[in-house]
């Protein structure tokens, strides 16, 4: 019973996946990962970490060296027809048939993925992506952002249950990025599972339910986004001083304060969930030393800080 429940709630299940290219480069090392149905999962990692290889193995572009991948409970190698028809893939590169029209290329993909013609579905997809007015335009005439939308429309043309977005907003302007995030959220509302890779932390922070971090082919962390931010979240307390000081008082050395802005600002990094943040001691000690405070501000660290911290810890 429990197992059935797990299978039903899992969109993609990867176990002990290895990929070594012919060149000997090991792109994935013993990767195990579960993507839940209906979630937005962000796979974060620096360039060359193995994000695209991981997606490629799930979608059928890359042959795994070892390990097993199930999509909707079906094996991607032995039941490829079943698994691939469940998946839509938006590749990282803007690869399009330059001389095709928007409509033709989207209709082509629908057919390729085994679905019969359905103009109403395609029309809805094109309208949702603001491509309807461009449906008869050749792809060569479209801007980069519009081409990106076309790739998304193609990936959605066969109404997939799982959508892979490989660096969806690379090289896309801010406005289009917002639009695209909205499209992705709408899809999630309709029950589509979304897996996106990105090296823009902002994107993951904005969109994801869960975050996985991959580095040098290894999954180094998978965590609920909120939990991750709380668990690893540091806060910075910045204290502006009325008069500059030359050195941090010896009594405060244990807190690891940093003196900034020519001695006019003290910065204290602390764990906001710890029992003792040290803030009371800090302010008391400053008073004792006659250091007068002008202003205070705190700042929550972003996912980017967390991410950099994680990678630094490993290296």
């Amino acid at each position, binding site marked *: 019973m429990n197992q059935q429940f797990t299978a039903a709630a899992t969109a993609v299940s990867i176990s002990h996946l290895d990929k070594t290219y012919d060149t000997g480069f090991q792109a994935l090392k013993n990767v195990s990962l579960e993507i839940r149905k209906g979630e937005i999962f962000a796979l974060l990692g620096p360039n060359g970490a193995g994000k695209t290889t991981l997606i490629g193995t799930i979608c059928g572009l890359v042959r795994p060296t070892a390990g097993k991948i199930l999509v909707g409970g079906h094996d991607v190698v032995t039941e490829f027809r079943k698994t691939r028809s469940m998946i839509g*893939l938006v590749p990282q590169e803007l690869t399009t048939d330059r001389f095709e029209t928007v409509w033709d290329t989207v209709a082509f993909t629908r*057919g*390729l*993925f085994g679905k019969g013609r359905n103009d109403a579905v395609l029309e809805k997809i094109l309208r949702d992506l603001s491509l309807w007015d461009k449906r008869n335009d050749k792809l060569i005439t479209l801007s980069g952002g519009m081409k990106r939308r076309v790739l998304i429309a193609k990936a959605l043309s066969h109404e997939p249950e799982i959508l892979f977005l490989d660096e969806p907003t690379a090289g896309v302007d801010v406005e289009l990025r917002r639009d695209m995030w909205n499209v992705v959220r709408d899809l999630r509302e309709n029950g589509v599972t979304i897996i996106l890779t990105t090296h823009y932390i902002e994107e993951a922070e904005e969109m994801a339910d869960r975050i996985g971090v991959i580095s040098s082919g290894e999954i180094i962390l998978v965590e609920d986004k909120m939990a991750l931010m709380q668990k690893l979240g540091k806060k910075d307390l910045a204290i502006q001083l009325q008069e500059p000081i030359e050195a941090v008082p010896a009594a405060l050395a244990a807190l690891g304060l940093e003196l900034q802005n020519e001695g006019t600002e003290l910065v204290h990094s602390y764990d906001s969930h710890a029992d003792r943040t040290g803030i009371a001691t800090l302010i008391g000690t400053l008073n004792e030393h006659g250091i007068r405070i002008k202003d205070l501000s705190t700042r929550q660290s972003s996912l980017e800080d967390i991410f950099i911290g994680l990678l630094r810890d490993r290296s």
Partner: protein
Amino acid sequence: MNFHAIKAIYVFEMARWWRTIMQSIISPVVSTSLYFVVFGAAIGSRIESVEGVSYASFIVPGLIMLSLLQQSLSNASFGIYFPKFAGTIYEILSAPISHVETIIAFVGAAATKSIVLALIILATANLFVDVQIQHPVWMVIFLTLTAITFSLLGFIIGIWADGFEKLQLFPLLIVTPLAFLGGTFYSITMLPPIWQTISLFNPVVYLVSGFRWSFYGTADVDIAISLAMTLVFLFAALGIIAWIFKTGYRLRT
């Protein structure tokens, strides 16, 4: 069977051909007409009939075969090479489509194009010279088998090629010389004995000979051997393709 996918690729390939239909048809028709003018009229008028057929008529099956080989190779190789070059191949590799279906679609489209072209050249030839087809069914069988075989070879070249130069390499350096030396413009019985023997190692000899037999009932090699060799080439091409898909050679990393 994913019929929607086969149809999608086939229609896509035919549409690409249709967009450039004038170039696709005019250039082979013009070059074939030139062969007629040069070999048929200018040179042919000084050659007696070959095996009871006027020289200009004699070269028709060979010329059709020459175009068929070149067009099948270039259509099929370009059809699969271009998505690789443009990067759109990702879509085909990630689609729920089997290898057999992929081949049926790509090779089917390439073979269709070259057969249509062969028929246009046949019609053009009919304007210049008297053409008889004694065995129309066999003519169609040889035409179709050869178109499929060379489209399969073209597909292999398209997968193997990693640049446009390589795409041209096989048609220019191997297939065209083999076609010229394979009895397109002559009967190999016109050659000295040693060259006749050497010619038998040229696969195109069997294709041209069988095809010409279906027109005029005369052949350089026995018709059964021609047919058998045509089938051997077909299965050899299928074998190579099976290996390519099995290993993912130059397709999947």
